[in-house]
């Protein structure tokens, strides 16, 4: 059979000729998709321009070209921060991913006792702000810390030199570990027992099997975890702020430039140095992940780990150490928050929870944070799910859907500080000057500056990608013919969306809501430049209390935040269990 070439012209990929009549429904979908793309454009891309643009101006608004960059690169104290950040990122990445890999391996591939408890404990740090980790570390290893003073004189003293790279790396490892753990557990769970049986039959030694079967099968997960951890540790602001001492990193430099010296131009310049490596990491990771093909076929047989007592107990010891440390940090925060005067008067009480004598906003900040997190969860979940639906299930408009998908994954590459600073530049101005012209336009979004709305918007965008991918995965599992069947019955897509798609995706939708709530509750980097004085926030309050030396109050506020996050998670768990029991009829047999 010879290959016949089509006799019709190849269709224009950007504007394919539609033969079918465009219905009102199509228009609705197009408009929604257009709006969805527009808002991502405003939320993600446009704010970057004034920020990057600002790095070419001096503080008085005069164009100075690359002078800021030259100054940055020739000032040793500034440029050292770049290498410091790199160092922190690389070290934290290696330690966190190494620990997470072993921990996940123990959970998925051994018969270690207490797996369920270890799984829960391993995820615990997800609900603790990195800032709070740092506060906990101060109480353990700081000048008057438990370990430093030899448990207040009981044991020999041991000063690990917390303030500086050591403290930052420990804090970042605590922060990155659960994120890497989630990825590694997923990667290690997706495997085919038959591969291992084959290896065994072929007489492969366990070590050889590990290198020829296990490692290659988790390669992509491992790479992903490395990139995620590097980006988190490279860009984090909370930990270095609290335990960094004189060790400058990019994130704290941006804060100092903007808040301390009000030098927005230099702040923008440093931000570019923070942004470029994360964007590169993002792009490289995307390219690598694209090569991934499904290693696990639908017929894969799940692996049933065999009992192997020496290994199981070795792993138990390891996991107990890791989990024990994360709990120790959490417990010491709670303990310290209840102690009257650390370390002199260890009587317990709630004195530190009376925030009236310290700065930061006290309970007002706490309630504001809850409100903000709640709004973020609602707005974010609706936006993400509708966006993911239109991208995944939309008809036609291929290029617009691809553009929307790209914009939805982009926020992962934007460090919180950069996003926050961009928002300052973008939303604060009443008018925008179009570059190189004398034309200015009125900024229609200026109204939300300094309100709750911009905080919610910033949070929704900051955590958009993870939520989007969750929704996307859930939607991909729904039969693509539902839309076709509905159309054949002349039921409009939005009705089927509401009656079928949403109920079927409810677990994922709630998961997204929780993720938004918890992260909005504990985040600091994206909002530290944005919150107005009238709206103090809990996470910011922790920084301010720590700055002012009120560490006990900071510990108390951290405790409140952590308990709220964990409480919401437990509520969610109870709720979904109830839901599953009610809808068991169709959820699972």
């Amino acid at each position: 059979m010879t290959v016949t070439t089509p006799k019709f012209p190849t269709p224009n990929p950007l504007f394919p000729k539609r033969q079918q009549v465009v219905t009102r429904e199509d228009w609705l979908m197009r408009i929604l998709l257009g709006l969805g793309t527009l808002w991502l454009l405003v939320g993600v891309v446009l704010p970057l321009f004034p920020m990057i643009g600002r790095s070419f101006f001096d503080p008085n608004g005069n164009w100075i070209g690359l002078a800021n960059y030259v100054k940055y690169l020739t000032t040793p104290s500034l440029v050292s921060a770049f290498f410091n950040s790199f160092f922190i990122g690389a070290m934290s990445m290696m330690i966190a991913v190494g620990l997470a890999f072993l921990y996940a391996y123990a959970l998925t591939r051994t018969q270690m006792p207490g797996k369920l408890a270890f799984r829960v404990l391993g995820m615990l740090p997800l609900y603790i702000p990195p800032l709070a980790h740092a506060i906990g570390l101060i109480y353990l290893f700081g000048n008057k810390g438990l370990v430093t003073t030899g448990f207040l004189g009981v044991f020999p003293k041991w000063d690990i030199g917390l303030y500086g790279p050591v403290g930052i790396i420990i804090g970042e490892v605590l922060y990155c570990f659960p994120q890497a753990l989630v990825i590694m557990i997923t990667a290690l769970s997706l495997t085919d027992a038959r591969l291992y049986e084959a290896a065994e039959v072929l007489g492969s030694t366990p070590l050889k099997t590990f290198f020829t079967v296990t490692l290659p099968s988790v390669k992509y997960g491992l790479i992903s975890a490395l990139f995620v951890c590097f980006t988190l540790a490279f860009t984090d602001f909370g930990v270095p702020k609290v335990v960094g001492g004189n060790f400058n990193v990019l994130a704290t430099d941006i804060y100092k430039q903007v808040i301390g010296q009000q030098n927005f131009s230099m702040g923008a310049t440093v931000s570019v140095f923070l942004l470029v490596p994360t964007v590169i990491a993002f792009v490289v990771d995307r390219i690598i992940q694209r090569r991934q093909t499904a290693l696990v076929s639908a017929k894969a047989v799940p692996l049933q780990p065999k009992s192997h007592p020496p290994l199981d107990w070795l792993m138990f010891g390891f996991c107990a150490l890791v989990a024990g440390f994360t709990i120790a940090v959490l417990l010491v925060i709670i303990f310290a928050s209840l102690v009257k005067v650390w370390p002199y008067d260890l009587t317990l009480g709630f004195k530190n929870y009376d925030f009236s004598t310290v700065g930061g906003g006290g309970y007002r900040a706490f309630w504001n944070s809850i409100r903000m997190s709640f709004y973020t969860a609602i707005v974010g979940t609706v936006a993400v799910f509708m966006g993911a639906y239109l991208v995944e299930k939309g008809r036609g408009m291929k290029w617009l859907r691809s553009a929307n998908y790209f914009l939805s994954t982009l926020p992962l590459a934007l460090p919180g500080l950069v996003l926050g600073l961009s928002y300052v530049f973008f939303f604060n101005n009443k008018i925008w000057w179009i570059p190189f012209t004398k034309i200015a336009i009125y900024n229609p979004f200026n109204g939300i500056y300094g309100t709750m709305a911009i905080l919610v918007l910033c949070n929704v965008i900051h955590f958009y990608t993870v939520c989007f991918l969750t929704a996307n995965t859930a939607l991909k599992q729904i039969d693509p013919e539902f839309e076709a069947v509905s159309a054949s019955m002349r039921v409009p897509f939005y009705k089927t969306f509401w009656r079928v798609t949403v109920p079927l995706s409810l677990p994922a939708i709630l998961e997204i809501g929780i993720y938004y709530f918890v992260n909005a509750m504990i985040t600091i980097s994206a909002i530290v430049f944005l919150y107005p004085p009238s709206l103090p926030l809990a996470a910011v309050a922790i920084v301010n209390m720590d700055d002012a030396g009120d560490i006990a109050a900071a510990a108390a506020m951290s405790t409140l935040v952590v308990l709220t996050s964990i409480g919401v998670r437990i509520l969610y768990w109870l709720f979904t269990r109830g839901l599953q029991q009610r809808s068991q009829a169709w959820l699972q047999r």
Partner: protein
Amino acid sequence: MNPSEQPALAVTSLQPATTPSRQTSAYGVVDGLAEPEPYLRIEDINKSFGNFVALKNIFLNVYPGEFVCLLGPSGCGKTTLLRIIAGLEEQTSGRVIQGGKNVSNLPPAQRDFGIVFQSYALFPNLTATQNVAYGLQNAKRPRAEIDRRVAELLETVGLTGMGQKYPSQMSGGQQQRVALARALALSPGLLLLDEPLSALDAQVRVKLRTEIASLQKRLGITTVMVTHDQAEALAMADRIVVMDKGYIAQVGAPRAVYQHPRNPFVANFIGVMNFLQGVVVAPDQVRCGNLVLLTPNNQAAVNQPVRIAIRPEDIRVLSVAEAQTHSQNVISAEVQSMEYMGTGYLVTCAPDGNAKDQITIDLSTFESGALGLEPGSTLRLYLPPDQVQVFAAE
């Protein structure tokens, strides 16, 4: 597959006897009788995905009340054609005319069809009743009417009393029936089925295919079904459309397609066919190896290389005595292997003086016992001249 096992189809006035040339002479008058207007007309449909041509110059007419099967190997474009009929896929060029109306440019919601997918696509969070009522509710029919209609539909597909179950609580066959009831709910003019039975196990499959076919006749609904199972197509369809690599290889009633395949592809795809290489030596004679066979069905010119074809069940095995009385079209062959099939043997043998081609024949257990067959035995095979078909060699 033996065609005589298939129920003979009553050719009613709605399903006029078809000839292979039907689709090109569809508007004309055949045998002096006015043809009924086709309900569905597919005119010169082409479809390409990028540079890949999935459908080429597809013409097809489907008559009112007719059951047409699109049959072909995987990837030949059956699903694509069905989806174009439904408007779920846009054709690159060509027209679809349904009920006298040009629907080529209409979106699915503005066409008139019910569809059943291989995956059933039942809404898992709705009960059987809610699934069937889905389109009726949207059409804002009164409650009582919906209830009546749903009960009626569930009865039609044999699911009375199962309405409150969720899809996950039903067997595959029951889910399939719900899907069918749902597709019929709005009384569409056209029923489209995409491999509706392929996810079921063999027994349920045979049972359901009979049921679907009789339901279709009872309702008189024009139906287009996609399948890659030739037995299914032969059993169910009024007419079969055999497709290959994006074009239509042959259209015709199951019997006609089986007995008179238009080319080797169709011959091979439907049923089993023996092929022998040869050269035309006279208008009605073909030489295969050193044997000259009578082939009255030959259309090829003298000296043209050809392949002659004959079905296993058409070959007769002759006793020594019978062989004396037949002077023509007898091949002697050596048994190479015998495959036990339950009802008999599938015997593969090599004709003398022709090493390249093999011949497969069907023998009942009784016959092969009577002949005392075993590998190595010699057989005399009679190829009835009328049953021998001649195709141009490729």
